[in-house]
């Protein structure tokens, strides 16, 4: 009797975890695992040239993971429509590199924190994946919003409820009020420094 109850419970757990992990989660997970894997290799040897190569590699994975164009559109909001096609392209190019660069820097600090995938929800062509990062001290909730095109790509990340896109939008809004889009792009180039043509 005990055994049957036990096996039913086990199968229930297996089923429920199978339901929770949809295809968006598995795509997200595989990209994140790939990047983390690269960082584990890196820790063994880090000459500066190898670092640049690694940045490039991570950027190519980031292109699979993030939908940078969608992110650029959302961060600029209404201002996006006012840009010329050329400006749109340039802005998306810079913003992508800027975000990828931040992502790289955060990963460098990665010290074996575990990522737990909690929940996946869908709405039309969008998905929301809830995760937590477990650190020594606490658990940091991190939500990904994804959009399905040829594959699932992230268009917003919320850390402890703070949406990255919304945060940049409030900053860009302020900058665009006082200065123009060209000033904003120059600021980005300055921040990126040598990594602006990755």
């Amino acid at each position, binding site marked *: 009797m005990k055994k049957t109850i036990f096996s039913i419970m086990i199968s229930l757990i297996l089923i429920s975890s199978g339901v929770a992990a949809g295809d968006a989660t598995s795509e997200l997970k595989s990209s994140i695992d790939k990047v983390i894997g690269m960082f584990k290799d890196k820790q063994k040897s880090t000459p500066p040239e190898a670092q640049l190569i690694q940045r490039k590699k991570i950027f190519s994975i980031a292109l699979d993971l993030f939908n940078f164009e969608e992110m650029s*559109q*959302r961060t600029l*909001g*209404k201002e*996006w*429509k006012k840009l010329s096609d050329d400006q749109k392209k340039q802005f998306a190019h810079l913003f992508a590199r800027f975000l990828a660069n*931040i992502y790289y*820097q*955060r990963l460098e600090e990665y010290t074996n924190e575990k990522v737990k995938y909690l929940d996946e*929800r869908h*709405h*039309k062509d*969008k998905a*929301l994946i809830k995760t937590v990062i477990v650190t*020594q*001290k606490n658990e940091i909730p991190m939500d990904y*919003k994804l959009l399905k095109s040829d594959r699932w790509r992230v268009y917003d990340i919320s850390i*402890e*409820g*703070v*949406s990255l896109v*919304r*945060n*940049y*939008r*409030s*900053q*860009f*809004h*302020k*900058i665009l009020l006082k200065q123009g889009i060209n000033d*904003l792009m120059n*600021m*980005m180039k300055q*921040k990126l420094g040598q990594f602006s043509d990755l």
Partner: protein
Amino acid sequence: MPHYKTKICMILFIFVLFLHGFIHAADTNTDQADTDIQDDWAFEDEFDEEMDEPVPPGVWDPLEKVNRCIFTMNDKLYLWCIKPVVQKYNHYTPIPVRVGLMNFFNNINMPQRAVNCLLQLRPIDSGTEIVSFAVNSTMGIAGFTNPSKTYFHLESHDEDLGQTLGTYGIGNGFYMVLPFLGSSTLRDITGSLGDNYLDPVNYIEDPYVLIGVSSVRTINTMSFRAGEYEKIKEMAFEPYSAVKDGYIQYRTKQIEK
């Protein structure tokens, strides 16, 4: 002294209530929070919404000029005074000691959480806080460890009066940057004045001990956040707006919970 504090608290509270009605129109943030509670999955229209809003949702900031000055001052204060102290502290204090101290201070702060859960009409959560306190104070060696979570899986509810007022539908009022303490809003500063009464540390009579204990608590809390502020600044194009928006989004989320 407490008498004077009560007065300030009362005046501010009335002020918040008074302002609330007429700020509501300007404070688009509260409206969004309301719809989010109903369905945080309402992002079908979100995209178009985001594209068409002329101004990103935020908080009223009539004191922006003063706030920016204090923000700059706090920035320097952090870099020149707090950061070096925290770095030294981290260097000489091993992580288990810091975590122990954090647990201890969290544990004695139970009254704030329990009372605010109750004020939010969550008696069960309030009870959980009291039970956790009893468990941690005894089994948990005066609260230095956290058996309520590790063994009994009792979740702590990080509630404060600012959040309680938020759940009553009181908006942020306006944003303010306080010297030393950083981001706050009219509602949250009112809340923290009230919460002060529930903080056992404030009942220490000897002023030197009070300052000592408060400093240890502050530095210990900061020690876990070392480097966070630098990262925010590094990521930001406009640090003032970034911190303001971050604070408002974070609080909105906390109130929803």
